[in-house]
């Protein structure tokens, strides 16, 4: 640990005796055992409750600490949560920033985007905490809050509903656990009672002079009956529990006006249903060639001549399509003509070399309006 850091932590934690003295009115806990210390998140200077009441009773007033120029209000004073006021301040700042930047992961297209967002937020937070570029950061924060007010409040509502639901679920679970425990206890008592009764019955019967074997047999029979009864009860209980669970689920879901449906994608307005495109948005068009119904290839030798193939019923009956041959040949011959390498290279090179790419495309557009630019691809 560096010396600097040691100094910092030493100044942050004051000796315990000083902790008991209000630095504004110098009264100590010895004289006033009910003394409470308060801080104001404007400057985090602490003072006792009576000082805060006294100084700020008639409206806003400057902080009584020497050299502190902040104007404070009574209603902003509160008890501090953390002993270290630095931590107190950081937590406050984080609370404030998080209330504004409350976007969730599912609002982003990818985890990377979300992480970038978190990084940006953390930068802002860091600046605020360490008082770097405060004005600029503050401005950024406020303008963002202004611009995204609706989204922020929506997310806020969403979060509070979720926490409500969670709390309700928690409560329900606890209740169910209590019920289960009580039911088990009741059952145990009942069983004990029945067993005791049975025993007393047997003794009574033996005492009144019945034969021992008969009594034993009867006792066995009752035991058997009891187990059967118990099994039935078990089944009933299971059904009852399930019904109760279903009912509580229903209450959880249908809770009056604050209806929350799980799994709903909120504030994503459904796009109007477009008619089904069987082609999936793709289309082919042949710009560079025009397919004719027939071609005269009479000069070609017989084995290359499609005319003879067309006359061959064996080829035709198999479904062979001469027009497809023409189409393929034309496509393979001319499809490349519509491709300007410089354009494609420009697209590929992307933003970094956009200058050269568009320059190339411009050249291509200027010179290649009618004829084709031949470029060596290899």
């Amino acid at each position, binding site marked *: 640990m560096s010396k600097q850091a040691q100094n910092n932590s030493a100044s942050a934690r004051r000796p315990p005796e000083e902790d008991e003295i209000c630095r504004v009115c110098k009264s100590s806990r010895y004289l006033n055992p009910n003394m409470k210390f308060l801080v104001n998140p404007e400057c985090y200077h602490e003072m006792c409750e009576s000082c805060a009441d006294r100084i700020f009773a008639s409206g806003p007033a400057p902080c009584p600490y020497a050299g502190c120029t902040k104007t404070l209000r009574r209603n902003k004073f509160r008890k501090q949560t953390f002993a270290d006021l630095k931590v107190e301040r950081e937590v406050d700042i984080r609370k404030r920033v998080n209330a504004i930047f409350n976007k969730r992961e599912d609002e982003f297209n990818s985890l990377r985007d979300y992480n970038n967002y978190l990084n940006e937020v953390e930068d802002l937070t860091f600046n605020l905490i360490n008082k770097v570029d405060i004005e600029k950061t503050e401005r950024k924060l406020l303008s963002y809050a202004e611009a995204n007010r609706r989204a922020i409040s929506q997310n806020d509502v969403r979060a509070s509903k979720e926490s409500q639901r969670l709390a309700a679920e928690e409560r329900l679970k606890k209740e169910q656990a209590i019920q289960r425990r009580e039911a088990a206890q009741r059952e145990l008592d009942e069983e004990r009672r029945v067993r005791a009764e049975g025993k007393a019955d047997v003794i009574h019967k033996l005492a009144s002079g019945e034969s021992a074997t008969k009594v034993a047999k009867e006792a066995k029979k009752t035991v058997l009956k009891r187990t059967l009864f118990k099994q039935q009860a078990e089944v009933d209980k299971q059904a009852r529990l399930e019904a109760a669970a279903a009912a509580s689920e229903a209450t959880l879901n249908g809770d009056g006006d604050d209806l929350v449906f799980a799994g709903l994608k909120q504030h994503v307005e459904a796009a109007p249903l477009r008619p089904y495109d069987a*082609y999936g948005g793709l289309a082919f068009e042949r710009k560079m060639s025009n397919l004719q119904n027939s071609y005269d290839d009479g000069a070609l030798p017989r084995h290359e001549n*499609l005319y003879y193939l067309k006359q061959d019923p*064996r*080829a035709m009956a198999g*479904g*062979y399509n001469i027009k497809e041959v023409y189409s393929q040949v034309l496509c393979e011959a001319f499809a490349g003509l519509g491709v300007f390498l410089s354009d494609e290279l420009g697209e590929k090179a992307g933003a970094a070399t956009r200058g050269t790419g568009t320059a190339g495309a411009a050249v291509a557009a200027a010179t290649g309006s009618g004829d084709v630019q031949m470029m060596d691809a290899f």
Partner: protein
Amino acid sequence: MEDSPQEPSTAAVDPTIDLSEQLNIETRNKYVKGKEIGSGTYAFVYKGHLRDEPNTLVAIKKMKVMENYKDGLTMDAVRETKYLQELSHPNIIKLYDVFTSKDTNMNLVLEFLPRGDLEQLIHDTGNVRYNSADTKAWMGMVARGIWFCHENFVLHRDLKPNNLLIAADGEVKLADFGLARSFSEPHLAMSTEVITRWYRPPELFYRARQYSGAVDIWSVGCIFAELILRNAFLPGQTDIDQVEVICQRIGTPTEENWPGVSKLASYVPVAKDKVRPVQPKSYYMQLFGTVGPFGVDLLMSMFTLDPRKRVTAKGILDHEYWAKDPRPTDKENLPKKGGGEKKMGEDLKRKGGVLEEGKADKVARKIDFGAMKK
């Protein structure tokens, strides 16, 4: 990867080796090969991911070196590489990269499709339920895929439900281009020993050496029928039996409904009294009525005996069926079944053109390459 697993790509490259070798090493080092998810007589399939982005999964299909192809690569491997690298469409499995390992093994880096295949969904009648809107959505994706192939002059020649893999987002993708080829040069005879039997059109049984995209359309029709029936529509036991089944369920090919059919090499004339007429629409309505009259129309046009009159892939997409109710289900909402990576491994390792059932089917189909050379 088995060789040089952790070396960074650039540092490992020896400046003395030639450029293609350097590129190969670079490509190989781009991926990390994970566990094996399937292996067969034809290929091993591994799960893998990008070295730089472990979340981007891929399937790596390593072709086995075949005994009788000592000098080079198997036809299947060449075809698959050749056509997949040309085709880039949402309904066709994507080939990212190709590299070799240990000098002899060819590795295809393919899109990772973890949701099994259409065959699983069709035949798991106990757990998977789907309706006519789902059927329409799947058929739309299949039709788009095959349309794209044909538009780029590629015949798939092995369409069947277990070659239709399902991506994580529900998109159906054509896979296994091991039997694919480009549209024929005129006068060049094509092999008729293609397409798995149940999905093979009649012209191939009659050994027409010149054919067109219509052969794939017949398969698409069989897939459509199978989606509706949840059972193969034309399950022949042998090639001869398959022709018989087609005659029964579709109709007997004759000169009337298919001019020139009797000239085909293996056409067997049928006695006049044995000829079964082409089944009327009422017959199809009875079997496939759930997809509505327009769906039945489309199905019938795919099952046209004469390949010249059979609907084209573009014709399928232009059909009224797509515009009618019900609207096809969005791909996110299609029924799913977790076949998982294992199933993808099984699908990719398979050899083309073979049914999976039965002992005899383990024997790979003999493809008549000699005939192609004339």
